[in-house]
């Protein structure tokens, strides 16, 4: 597996509607924070990896990594953009890991970002839908919300999931987001307001039945960044580096209907198992988790298929408060995609940033006490390209 690899710096831009900056401005904002956090100089950066799914389509700028390297004055560092749908961020971190572990590079800056809020919602939804199967799904009008809606319906039929459980996940993540200064949505929501009262029908309108607005993530601008280096070099820069202990990456059929069981996220199972095997760890050793809850059903399904709960039981754990910040297994302390937001290319990197802060004890009000091992899952396609990480606090 090569050299041990560590994260020595991380930073984020504020997520949200960022009319004040273009995409490059957001990438620079996050990158300078992570470089500053790492304490590295410009000459220390051997390569810049930029994760962005839609920079060409939404901001009319391609070869974005070359532009960032120039903006940051880290020339002549290598630079490349990594596009892997909504899993672009995790793919970029994984490739940086591989480059450092192999000895190709010593220190790599990974920054993910997306600028999306300026575009009309239907256009963004359509562009993201291009990750579905072009002839079996996309041409028939399939969108990501529609696939998530169908998965939710399956869960309701098979496991007794109720919309109330989705509301509880959303409320938890909004509460966590309130404690995260970088989160897009700083707004408390209540069970009365989004589910119980009659007016919840209008407060929380349908998106793709049975999914409603508060069960889906917002469209967000933002960027996140980490600096990765070899473990032996890490101590030089940082007193509390975080080790990338395990990575798993797996794919599944592009078209959801071709899967043996569409309620089972096989790529989540495989990527997760690979990450735990590599880290010589297991789900019960994990203290804090970041999952890809683009839709709240995904937080439940991913937590099961990643091995944290028996299939079909995660909603009961949510009901019992297990996944709350002060529960036995906190999930999405950052607010997740639901409240932190989902600038697509940034998300996988933002998950690593959050867990690095958690493992370093730097997560402020949302700190999970005593966190030593953490797990992240970045979910591409509708489960056809999934990257998992196990991170460990380096003592």
């Amino acid at each position: 597996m090569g050299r041990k690899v560590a994260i020595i710096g991380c930073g984020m831009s504020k997520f949200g509607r960022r009319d004040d900056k273009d995409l490059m401005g957001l990438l620079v904002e996050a990158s300078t924070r992570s470089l500053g956090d790492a304490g590295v100089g410009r000459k220390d950066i051997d390569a810049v990896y930029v994760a962005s799914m839609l920079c060409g389509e939404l901001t009319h700028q391609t070869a974005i990594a070359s532009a960032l390297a120039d903006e940051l004055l880290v020339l002549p560092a290598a630079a490349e953009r990594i596009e892997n749908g909504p899993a672009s961020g995790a793919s970029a971190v994984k490739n940086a890991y591989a480059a450092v572990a192999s000895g190709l590079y010593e220190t790599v800056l990974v920054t993910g970002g997306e600028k999306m809020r300026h575009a009309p919602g239907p256009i963004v939804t359509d562009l993201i839908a291009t990750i579905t199967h072009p002839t079996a799904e996309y041409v028939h009008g399939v969108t990501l919300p529609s696939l998530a809606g169908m998965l939710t319906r399956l869960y309701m039929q098979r496991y007794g999931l109720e919309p109330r459980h989705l509301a509880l996940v959303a409320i938890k993540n909004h509460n966590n987001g309130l404690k995260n200064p970088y989160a897009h949505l700083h707004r408390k929501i209540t069970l009365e307001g989004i589910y119980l009262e009659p007016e919840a029908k209008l407060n929380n309108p349908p998106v793709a039945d049975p999914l409603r607005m508060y069960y889906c993530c917002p469209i967000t601008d933002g960027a996140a960044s980490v600096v990765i280096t070899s473990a032996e070099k890490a101590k030089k820069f940082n007193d509390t580096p975080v080790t990338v202990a395990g990575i798993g990456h797996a794919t599944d059929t592009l078209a959801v209907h071709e899967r043996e069981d569409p309620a089972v996220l096989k790529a989540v199972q495989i990527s997760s198992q690979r990450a735990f095997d590599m880290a010589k760890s297991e789900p019960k050793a994990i203290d804090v988790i970041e999952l890809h809850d683009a839709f709240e059903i995904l937080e439940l399904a991913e937590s099961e298929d990643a091995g944290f709960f028996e299939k079909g039981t995660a909603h009961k754990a949510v009901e019992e408060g297990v996944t709350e910040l002060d529960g036995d297994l906190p999930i999405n302390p950052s607010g997740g995609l639901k409240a932190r937001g989902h600038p697509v290319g940034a998300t996988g990197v933002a998950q690593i940033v959050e867990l690095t802060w958690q493992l370093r004890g730097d997560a402020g009000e949302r700190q999970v006490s005593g966190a030593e091992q953490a797990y992240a899952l970045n979910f591409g396609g509708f489960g056809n390209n999934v990257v998992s990480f196990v991170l460990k606090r380096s003592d």
Partner: protein
Amino acid sequence: MTEVADFLSVDWDVPRKPYPAKALTLATGEKMVIREASREEVPQLLMAIRPLLDAPGEFYDVVAARTYAELLGWHRYRVRNEYCLVGVVDGKLVGLVNNRLVDKDLCVSLHTIAMRKGRSVGAHLFAAKQEHAIEYLGVSEILVTAESPRGFNLLVVNWGLEPRPGVQHELGGAKSWVLTKENYYKHKDEQVFGKRPVPGDLYEQSLNFELIEPDIMRLESD
């Protein structure tokens, strides 16, 4: 002079059945009171709207400028039969809507302004002014137009409005749609909410509202 006096002797407000205030719960759990605004409150409403004249996002400036003119005209007796509802949360003005009664059968939907975004404030207020028109003023049709794509989705699509080609809405060149009484009752259960009567302390709090910085003015708003 007689002709001028005659010209000015217009019934600026026909007697209308008052709109009883109601209260509803927002997604945040906060209670929003929706009540009819009085002509005397217009100066304060104008102050609330004024910052939005510099907010081009989502055509807030266009809507603000037009609403400003409409409310000012109502206040100064230059517009007939206009009425305005306000939404108040925790003693703060979070939105307002206005309509104009043309005759006993027809109401014209004018504008909806949400100071707080992303909380369905505008959707609840828009529904309330149509409730006012159909259920309290007794009109059979409300003429509607949309000045932004967001408004189109919120109003025209969600309410299943019928196009009314050939009829000019008084807000200008945009296409006209109509909300009929039949369509109103068809959508009422999904769109119109609120409990009456409003508890006394909540209602009292809504009478002396404070103004807030509209969300659209903040760069990092939702």
